[in-house]
């Protein structure tokens, strides 16, 4: 591994988006200043994200001839002590110690024994947070481009396709279509030009797997794409990346230039006679452009809208030519698969879902970040063993898998294995890897409203079931928590019940008749909500109550006259002038005027505002 033979200390700083957001840049400046102050010669290497986003900024120190030691949640004021202890004295700075990249001892445990990493199996993420994403040399030193070398020198294109097919790699973008079968379709097509596209238009709320791979190991994606292009006979490729990922785009552009400089992109790659050129196309952030025909339209300069299939892109895709589209994680699997072989890859996972899957843990979970697990482990293991459970002693309520088109799963199905088929059975889907955990304070009606709002806003409008259906579903859901005043027409209340009665049928129609996957899976948040959290919907409807205290129209704010000191602060802050009372006397909230903004709760210093 690179740096093994270095004779000066090497300091690695996690500078992915998560690291930078946590203050890695300030930590880097502090380290540079301290090294200068103490007259220490050391090399500083920026890396990507190691996955443990909750513990950023992460700084690793490797002294010559010693193991690399990882420190977490480092802040600038730690640096003087840290440099003295870990570099000058050659010891361990225990205050921020995370783990050792070496074998580990009882005093200095291995990073692989940290619960967050223990159950993980890193294939796609093996270099993330470990190497400098801007250094092609580091990627090569870590075994990079060996798979390309093998494919071009030893394997025929048909053999590469066969290997991917035998490995059982399935598309990691969501649907799980077998990658080898897809590649074979394009491989068999005769055409003067073929294309390969990487779908890096990661749009699911709560998903950041692709961004992290692009930022932390861009050469792995490029290597996978070159191998894919060789397999199907494509000479041009695009990475369709959302413009909201500026760091990823910057690192990809740099990586593409480096590959050209090293003769790994362009004509006659490694003297094989194979030519492949790669470009980046920035997406404008439309969720529907993650759908492959819409993505192709967007690259062609048209409005991003899906087309009916067939023809499939493998037959007639970009500019009417055979085109293969895979997502970032799928391509990022290819190099390891070719290097270690189909047998190795298919030995990981379950009968129908091979290999590993990367998930982005977010929401109410202790260890938020990026995890890569072998297919087949349970959701419970991800939430509690890797994710560290729910913070603040709160209870687990649900996990949302598969993005807005996925489903919310309760505790009763947490022992489900991570597997394309098993997740479908319980009403969710693998999706691209969003994994949003919710605790007891989350209202499932509100969650359904959030995802439906997202889907309605992102519907391209081409087909009626999705365009109109998602809007109508959202209206029904929005009507659930509304509290009508007695003066309003009772018809509105009747509409609320009527809507609920029609919800299931409407969901079925949208699922069965929409043009693309976005519409077909749009009802999933509602369907899984009705399946697993029916009582909560009923509570909102019949008891007009939101136990999670989220749906504001159903809440009543009252002042506890026993504890109210009559300071008047809440009355001053109340924009609706709903709070009345004399000075130093208990105050009251006029319910008719109250707009449930919650400002009084935030203002009261005595905890006298109660929410019923």
């Amino acid at each position, binding site marked *: 591994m690179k740096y093994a*033979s270095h004779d000066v200390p090497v300091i690695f700083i996690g500078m992915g988006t998560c690291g930078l957001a946590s203050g890695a840049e300030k930590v880097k400046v502090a380290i540079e200043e301290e090294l200068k102050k103490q007259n220490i010669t050391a090399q500083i290497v920026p890396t990507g994200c190691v996955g443990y986003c909750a513990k950023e900024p992460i700084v690793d120190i490797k002294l010559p001839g010693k193991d690399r030691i990882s420190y977490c949640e480092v802040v600038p004021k730690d640096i003087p002590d840290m440099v003295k202890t870990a570099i000058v004295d050659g010891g361990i700075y225990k205050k921020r110690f995370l783990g050792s990249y070496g074998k580990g001892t009882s005093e200095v445990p291995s990073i692989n024994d940290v619960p967050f990493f223990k159950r993980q199996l890193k294939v796609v993420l093996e270099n993330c947070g470990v190497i400098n994403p801007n250094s092609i*040399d580091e990627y090569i*030193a870590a075994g990079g481009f060996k798979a390309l070398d093998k494919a071009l020198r030893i394997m025929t294109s048909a053999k590469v396709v066969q290997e991917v097919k035998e490995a059982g790699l399935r598309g990691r973008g969501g649907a799980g279509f077998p990658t080898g079968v897809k590649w074979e379709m394009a491989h068999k097509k005769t055409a003067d030009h073929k294309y390969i596209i990487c779908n890096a238009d990661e749009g699911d709320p709560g998903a950041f797997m692709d961004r992290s791979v692009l930022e932390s190991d861009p050469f792995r994606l490029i290597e996978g794409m070159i191998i894919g292009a060789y397999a199907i006979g494509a000479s041009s490729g695009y990475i369709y990346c959302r413009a909201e990922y500026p760091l990823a785009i910057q690192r990809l552009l740099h990586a593409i230039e480096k590959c050209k400089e090293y003769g790994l992109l362009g004509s006659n790659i*490694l003297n094989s006679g194979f030519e492949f050129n790669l470009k980046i196309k920035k997406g404008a952030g439309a969720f529907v452009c993650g759908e492959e025909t819409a993505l192709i339209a967007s690259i062609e300069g048209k409005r991003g809208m899906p087309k009916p299939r067939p023809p499939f892109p493998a037959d007639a895709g970009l500019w009417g030519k055979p085109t293969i589209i895979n997502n970032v994680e799928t391509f990022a699997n290819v190099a390891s698969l070719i290097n270690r072989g189909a047998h190795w890859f298919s030995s990981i996972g379950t009968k129908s879902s091979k290999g590993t899957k990367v998930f982005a843990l977010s929401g109410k979970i202790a260890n938020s970040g990026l995890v890569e697990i072998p297919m087949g482990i349970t959701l419970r293991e991800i939430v509690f063993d890797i994710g560290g459970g729910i913070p603040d002693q709160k209870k687990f309520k649900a996990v949302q898998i598969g993005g807005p088109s996925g489903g919310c799963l309760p505790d009763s199905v947490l022992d489900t294995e991570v597997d394309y088929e098993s997740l479908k059975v319980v009403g969710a889907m693998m999706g691209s890897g969003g994994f949003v955990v919710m605790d007891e304070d989350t209202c499932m009606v509100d969650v359904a409203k959030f995802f439906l709002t997202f889907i309605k806003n992102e519907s391209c409008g081409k087909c009626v079931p999705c365009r109109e259906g998602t809007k109508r579903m959202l209206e029904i859901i929005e009507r659930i928590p509304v509290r009508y005043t007695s003066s309003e027409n009772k018809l509105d209340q009747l509409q609320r019940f009527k809507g609920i009665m029609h919800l299931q049928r409407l969901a079925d129609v949208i699922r069965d008749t929409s043009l693309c996957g976005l519409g077909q899976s749009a009802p999933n948040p509602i369907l899984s909500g009705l399946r697993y959290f029916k009582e909560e919907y009923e509570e909102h409807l019949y008891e007009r109550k939101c136990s999670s205290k989220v749906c504001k129209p159903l809440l009543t704010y009252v002042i506890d006259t026993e504890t109210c000191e009559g300071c008047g602060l809440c009355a001053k802050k109340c924009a609706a002038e709903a709070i009345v009372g004399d000075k130093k006397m208990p105050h009251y909230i006029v319910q008719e005027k109250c707009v449930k903004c919650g400002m009084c709760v935030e203002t009261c210093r005595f905890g006298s505002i109660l929410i019923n």
Partner: protein
Amino acid sequence: MKSFIEKCCDQCWHSVEKPCDHFVACCTEGPLCHKDDKCKEKFQKNK
């Protein structure tokens, strides 16, 4: 030799215009086309 693209000596001929089939293997195990301890040391140090 600061990077793998740099030539270890005059005997290395890999370039974008005239690529070597063994470039990738050479980076980590090189030099492969000739024997030279000094060149080997350069590769090892970069590795």
